[in-house]
């Protein structure tokens, strides 16, 4: 039985796909068979971030409709053993993801994998609800910015009532906060909500803080999940988050402004 994890946010463009790619790669690298599923019907971007766009033959909706089976559709990652990608469909039909269809595919994946990571689309419409409905756990991706925090709170509300888990009377699913695009400099200047501020407002456990980093754009340019860029701050922060997700205790890093040497103090910004 796989554990199903939804990566969600409400607001668009906050880093869900970046996070889905990084965390699923981290879990697979730790030896867990992991499938990462793109629920963003119509847009499909996970394939690009994972660098497998040219290997897409069939997609999620093809499997739901019985046009292809999972074996034909799942794309095996060539860098990390045990990591598979299920691409989203580019159909414009937003109702293509039926509850029964999604359940069937997740059940089948469940027999073969340890973790299923669901990359949710933005918003609180059907696609996002479907990505969350069967989840056992959630990662709520938030930027330190008012509209993102507010949307995350809405999503937390949905997670506490509109999942199968909740509807069966088992209460809200555990959700953890991943604060991304964090800039310690701007927090120090009082221009950006701090991780403590966001945690206080949302009142959920903290999975990790990912700094604003050039490495993320570089990674997406190359089609490599940023967690594989082990020298980068964002890559290391995602590695920490993946380890915490698996129950390891790791101290949070990249929360403070790096101390500048004399050179930096004289010539830095």
């Amino acid at each position, binding site marked *: 039985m796989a554990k199903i994890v939804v990566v969600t946010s409400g607001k668009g463009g906050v880093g869900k796909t970046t996070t889905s790619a990084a965390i699923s790669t981290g879990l697979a690298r730790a030896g867990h068979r992991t499938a990462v599923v793109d629920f963003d019907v119509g847009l499909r971007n996970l394939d690009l971030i994972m660098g497998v766009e040219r290997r897409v033959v069939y997609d999620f909706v093809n499997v739901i409709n019985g046009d292809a089976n999972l074996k034909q559709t799942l794309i095996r990652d060539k860098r990390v053993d045990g990591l598979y990608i299920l691409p989203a469909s580019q159909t414009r039909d937003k109702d293509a993801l039926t509850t029964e269809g999604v359940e069937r595919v997740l059940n089948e994946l469940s027999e073969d994998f340890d973790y299923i990571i669901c990359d949710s689309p933005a918003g609180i419409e059907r696609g996002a609800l479907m990505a969350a409905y069967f989840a056992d756990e959630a990662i709520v991706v938030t930027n330190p910015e008012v509209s993102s925090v507010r949307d995350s709170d809405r999503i937390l509300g949905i997670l506490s009532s509109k999942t199968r888990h909740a509807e069966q009377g088992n209460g809200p699913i555990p959700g953890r906060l991943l604060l991304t695009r964090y800039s310690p400099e701007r927090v120090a200047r009082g221009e950006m909500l701090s991780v403590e501020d966001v945690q206080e*407002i949302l009142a959920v456990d903290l999975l990790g803080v990912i700094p604003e980093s050039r490495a993320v754009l570089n990674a997406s340019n190359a089609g490599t999940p940023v967690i594989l860029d082990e020298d980068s701050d964002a890559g290391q922060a995602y590695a920490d988050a993946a380890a915490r997700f698996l129950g390891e205790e790791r101290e949070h890093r990249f929360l403070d402004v790096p101390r500048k040497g004399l050179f930096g103090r004289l010539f830095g910004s």
Partner: protein
Amino acid sequence: MSFFDYFRSRKTRSAQLAKERLQVIVARERVHRDGPDYLPRLQEEILNVIRKYVQVDEDAVSIQLERDGNCEVLELNVTLPEQRV
């Protein structure tokens, strides 16, 4: 206040302001979300009743439903304007 403090305190305001605004809106939206459907209307009617007697702000009435085991407590807070002596 020194010259530098002046700029620092001006800068500190924006994140602090964001936090305060978020706390208010998130609290309000949670009431609407988690509570029974009648809660927003109840809140509005109570506000209107109070306004017959005292002129209060839109957000002067806050209403919250707390669950404690199988007991539900309706908590009502009314902020009255400061009394001028």
